[in-house]
């Protein structure tokens, strides 16, 4: 539970900026809080807001959540191998709610086997931080001076950068993929016609680019056979 405290504080700051954007997308305090409580995913919620703001379809919403949160499949796999095999399905079902980048990060540093109660303890602090931050962001976003809101808007992106840059240092193929993504994604904001699709539905654009770029890299630079992905991330 102690390990959950820094996460809760960080969540609070980031979800606050998420809340400000939720308000812009037309959500009420209650809606934003329920969204954060039930989804508990920064990148997913962030993409969802752009879909809600532009009135995208439910299908594109489902697809965007699936693609953006695909990484949880890997984390969930990795954690599944770290909890005691006799752990009940009920515990597994409850624990899986807590698969987030940050809780995964602290969980894999615990000695094996991972106790379900470790996850619950971390969640007990992190979830209220996340939900309260979102709710306050919606409620108080327009009370804060512009320059503070402007600065807070960068928080989410800062968090994203803190995920893809360290891995780029570890693996030059990831670095290459990140660089390619930056260039292609920026280009799509300027190329005529593609630019219009992006404007109409940023969520769809994210899905298309993610699938295409990841697929090309998976074909060109497959991971090494003995280089097990779940094991890899579990070792960090």
């Amino acid at each position, binding site marked *: 539970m102690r390990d959950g405290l820094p996460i809760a*504080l*960080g969540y609070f*700051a980031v979800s606050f900026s998420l809340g400000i954007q939720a308000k812009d997308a037309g959500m009420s305090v209650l*809606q934003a809080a329920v*969204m954060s409580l039930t*989804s508990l*995913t920064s990148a997913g*919620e962030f993409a*969802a807001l752009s879909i809600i703001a532009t*009135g995208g*379809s*439910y299908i594109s*919403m*489902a697809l965007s959540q*699936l*693609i*953006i*949160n*695909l990484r*949880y*499949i*890997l*984390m*969930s*796999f990795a*954690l*599944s191998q770290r909890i005691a095999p006799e752990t009940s399905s009920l515990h*597994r079902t409850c624990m*899986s*709610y807590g*698969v987030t980048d940050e809780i995964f990060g602290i969980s894999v540093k615990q000695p094996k086997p991972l106790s379900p109660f470790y996850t619950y303890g971390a969640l007990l602090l992190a979830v209220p931080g996340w939900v309260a931050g979102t709710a306050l962001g919606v409620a108080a976003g327009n009370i804060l001076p*512009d*320059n503070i809101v*402007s*600065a*807070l*808007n*960068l928080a989410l*992106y*800062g968090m*994203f*950068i*803190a*995920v*893809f*840059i*360290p891995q780029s240092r570890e693996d030059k193929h990831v670095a290459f*993929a*990140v660089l390619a*993504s*930056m260039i*292609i*994604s920026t280009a799509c904001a300027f190329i005529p016609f593609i630019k219009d699709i992006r404007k109409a539905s940023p969520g769809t654009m*994210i899905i298309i680019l993610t699938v295409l*770029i*990841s697929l090309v890299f*998976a074909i060109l630079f*497959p*991971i090494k*056979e003995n280089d097990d992905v779940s094991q890899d991330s579990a070792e960090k």
Partner: protein
Amino acid sequence: MSNNIWIYITVMAVVTYLVRMLPMTLIRKEIKNKLLRSFLYYVPYVTLTVMTVPAIFSATRSTASAIAGFITALILSFFKKSMILVATVSCAVVFITELFIH
């Protein structure tokens, strides 16, 4: 198309939860397919990058402060600082930059 926000929230919750829950409860053996594993390996990094660039440059009041924050985040995360630290310090840099230009 006018859509209900509550339905959006429900769709999000269901999909996100299933993505987390199914691997942990049902699939206990490893994925063998190399292409699929490689694809899953790249997805998180690509999707986060695509979401960040170029959107980050219009996230703040001025492109200049966004660039300052972006560069700060790049440098800090290159030295493997924690997510929270990267996020807070980059916000602070945006704030300070804007003090100078506004």
